[in-house]
């Protein structure tokens, strides 16, 4: 469903991605791990073109979306993204946060958008908060709203950029539960995370990135259980 070929990204002289080739199949959950600064967030942000790749190609459902003629807005609506710092719209209530995208981008009616939003809020376990503003919610609740906001677009894939890194420890579980349930429902997902236990549990495949390349990849058992590369071993010995 998503494929990158020779993906590179540099910020000035800082070569963050040095050639990434990945193919993600429908319904697959790919977990990306690696030390800070290894390029995993940049990789994720290149997939929906929040970052413009310096070279290489990104394909989505067979179409080369790095082609300058492609309408990026049409691609992004099919790929939901969840950010480390939630990025909810602070001037809008929870329900307005969720209905904005479907109404403005997909042209869904207010009634239908609200219905979808309420279903999703129930699904992420905060149906009673629809009239609240983001500042009135806990971090875990905000992140669940952010997930509902992304899902409201009925995307074909979801990208999670360290979705639990900014959360207090007691709230991590409730967000991981939601992501886990999405995985069970068969959502195609790319998950950048520091939660190794979670990676092992939900990941169909784990990519270990370091210094802008994929150092090792395989099933969670292979990469997390029996890492072959010394860099993977060094990283895992520090975080496990």
């Amino acid at each position, binding site marked *: 469903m998503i494929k990158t070929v020779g993906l590179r990204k540099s910020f000035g002289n800082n070569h963050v991605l040095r050639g990434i080739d990945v193919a993600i199949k429908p319904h697959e959950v790919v977990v990306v791990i690696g030390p800070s600064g290894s390029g995993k967030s940049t990789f994720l942000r290149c997939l*929906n073109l*929040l970052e413009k790749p310096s070279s290489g190609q990104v394909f989505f459902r067979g179409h080369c979306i790095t082609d300058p003629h492609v309408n990026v*807005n*049409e691609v*992004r*609506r*099919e*790929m*939901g*993204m969840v*950010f480390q*710092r939630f*990025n*909810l*719209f*602070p*001037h809008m209530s929870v329900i307005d946060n969720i209905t*904005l*995208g479907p109404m*403005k*981008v997909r042209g869904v009616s207010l009634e239908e958008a609200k219905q979808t939003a309420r279903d999703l809020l129930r699904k992420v376990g905060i149906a009673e908060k629809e009239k609240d*503003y*983001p*500042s009135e919610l806990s971090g875990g609740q905000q992140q669940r709203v*952010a997930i509902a*906001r*992304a899902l409201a*677009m009925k995307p074909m894939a979801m990208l999670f950029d360290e979705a639990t890194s900014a959360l207090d420890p007691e709230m991590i579980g409730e967000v991981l539960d939601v992501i886990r349930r999405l995985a069970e429902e068969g959502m195609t997902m790319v998950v950048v995370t520091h939660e190794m236990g979670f990676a092992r549990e939900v990941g169909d495949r784990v990519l270990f990135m370091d210094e802008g390349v994929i150092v090792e990849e395989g099933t969670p058992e292979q990469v997390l259980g029996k890492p072959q590369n010394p860099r993977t071993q060094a990283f895992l010995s520090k975080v496990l």
Partner: protein
Amino acid sequence: MALDFSIIPGIIPALLLGTRLTIELAVIAVAIGLVIGSFAGIARVGGSNVARIVTGVYVDFIRGTPLLVQLFLVYFGLPTLIRRPVPPFIAAITAMGVNSGAYIAEIVRAGIQSVDRGQMEAARSLGLTYSQSMRYIIFPQALRRIIPPLGNEFIAMLKDSSLVSVIALEELLRKGQVVITRTFRPFEVYMVVALIYLAMTLAISRLVAWSERRLRVVD
């Protein structure tokens, strides 16, 4: 020579007339400034390279030269170019409006840039276009941060409008001067003039402080 406050009641009506013109000048100037400044401010953030350069030069020129010089350029300079006189009121609101526009452009630019980058990213990642993101996500948040400094800009214009007294517009300061030729009481008259300015600016700064509390950004 002792102070003589008995003249004050007699001069108030004339000064209030001038006050009215002062307020009109400031309101019209800031209104013009708001239109110019909104476009220029947006252009400085999201415009083409040409638009950025043009608005940059405009802002630098206005902020780097005295308003009095700008006023003379319009009132004395422009007539030689267009071969017809510019009425004082038109000259005043033109110079003040264009001046205010530059300052407001900077206020608008700062307001837009103060919105967290993640807001634009979140909006774009939903598939909203750049202009939709600006309209629904960035501007509403920027506006809350723009309103208080706009109040300060209005105060500045209110005070700076006294400069147009030199082109014979009978605003508050000029009215004071006229009254002095009648009463020969410069200290008392200028004191009253100063207090009228003070009353207006204090009222507005209170309003600004109140709006700052009301609009405190939640995030």
